[in-house]
């Protein structure tokens, strides 16, 4: 089991009476794309928050690049090479699109001029260059999703955590973003993604982990998971309609 980039074991988190995540284990190998799916409220976003340091787990361990990152502050986790996006996009609305991406780039390029060059390169790649000088608050939803991705990419991570970057996009926009995520992965970046858009999941992920009520109920290749009766039950309920 060596060589795992991210290794999560026995992760649990309770909010009052709600067991949001229960004994979750998963791993992401280098250069791999893993999808985390499950019905609404299954604990996917909580799992992301735990892994990226925004929440502290009640139990369990998280190892990243061979070292424990359990309990580490989010900015430290990011500095180690893990970047996340937020399901509800969080742009810096009054800053320009370029500045938004520069905030990510400044971590590895303390000199603003270098960070700006880096940020412009990312904007070019994601087709946002024309909007660079605009305030981020004025972007469309599709653009905000790309900006969210651009900010994360600018931190130059080795593992990217994408929380529903496709949701709310139309078919053409989704296809374009899927192609871009694939291109990012082809450059050697591992990706862990939460996604409801199944077409995107099926075409991107090499492995899928299914959560329900905070627990892992299935794991495997996309076609295995899609035919797993427990997964179908979780999504559709056990009573035949």
């Amino acid at each position, binding site marked *: 089991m060596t060589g795992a980039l991210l290794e999560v074991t026995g992760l649990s988190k309770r909010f009052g009476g709600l067991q949001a995540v229960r004994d979750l284990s998963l791993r992401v190998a280098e250069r791999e794309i893993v999808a985390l799916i499950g019905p609404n409220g299954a604990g996917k976003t909580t799992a992301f928050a735990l892994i990226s340091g*925004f929440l502290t787990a009640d139990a369990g361990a998280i190892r990243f690049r061979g070292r424990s990152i359990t309990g580490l502050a*989010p900015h430290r986790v990011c500095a180690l090479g893990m*970047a996340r996006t937020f399901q509800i996009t969080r742009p810096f609305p009054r800053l320009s699109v370029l500045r938004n991406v520069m*905030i990510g780039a400044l971590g590895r390029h303390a000199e603003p001029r270098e960070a700006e060059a880096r940020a412009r390169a990312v904007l070019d790649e994601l087709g946002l260059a024309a909007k660079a000088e605009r305030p981020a608050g004025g972007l469309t939803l599709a653009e905000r999703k790309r900006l969210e991705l651009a900010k994360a990419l600018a931190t130059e991570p080795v593992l990217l955590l994408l929380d529903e970057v496709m949701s709310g996009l139309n078919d053409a926009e989704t296809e374009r973003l899927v192609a871009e995520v694939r291109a990012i992965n082809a450059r050697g970046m591992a990706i862990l993604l939460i996604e409801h858009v199944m077409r995107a999941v099926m075409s991107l992920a090499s492995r899928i982990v299914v959560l329900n009520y905070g627990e892992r109920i299935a794991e495997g290749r996309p076609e295995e998971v899609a035919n797993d009766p427990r997964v179908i039950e979780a999504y559709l309920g056990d009573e035949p309609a």
Partner: protein
Amino acid sequence: MKWLGALAVLALLALPAVLNSYGVTIFILIFFYAFLGQAWNVVGGYAGQLSVGHAAFVGVGGYTAAMLSIEKGLTPWLGMFVGGALAALLGAVIGYLGFRFGLRGFYFVLLTVAFAEICRIAVSNIDALGGALGLYITFTGDPRQFQFQDNRVYYYIALGLMLAATGIVALLERRRFGIYLTAIREDEGACEALGVDTLKYKLLAMILSSFLTGIGGTFYAFYLFSLQPGTMFGIPLSVEIILRPIVGGAGTLLGPLLGSFILTPLAELSRLYFGQSGLHGLHLVAYGLLLIGVVLFLPQGAYPYLRRLIAGTRA
């Protein structure tokens, strides 16, 4: 824009030649409040952490330099840096308590006000610091004791303070530190996700801001020749400090300066005018009305509005 700034500085350098002594006094206050506003701007404007207790740093800076001068004979030219350092220490304590425990918005406001009030009450009750009566500095006119026969010297010192603080903030704006602060103001969680140590940068902003404000305290004390707990630590001074950058444009380089050039003469002249006509306190009403106007019509302050206006005429 650059030559316009240089021209303005030259004009301000030459100005005392044509001003009467009341005019010089008004400009001293304009520069001084612009300086304090600029110092506050670092943490309140750029980093968006609303401190309404900055008088605490004026008081600590002023009392430190005054005590060192009175008791130990240390020149305020050095004492001001000791005062600045102690103010920065207090700023670090307040900042750490507030930021470490995630106090935001109103709660941070209350924390800063509480600290300033604790300082005021403590100093009022410590006889060694003059108690409620305060401290008085004997006027000798000795420049080494930060005392000058000619009011115009204070003018140039205040101008220097304002320009120095503005220079520091201008430098900051172009560095990673300043860029991070503007993002922290917008969304701290998103900053953390991008690798920004928000606690560290907010703390640094607080320390720099309180250090500069502490230096201002020395100027204030040695300009007035007296220090009272109420004037040095009181809520009214804290409010005066934040009004100018807010009116001029918080988080902008020239906002505090513009705000001070608008508000300070207004405050002084209306105080004089209403005072002479026996309507004491009415200047505060005029002040209040202006503030309401700014909040309603220029919520981002006068400077961003002015800049759009200039950009509009050029286009």
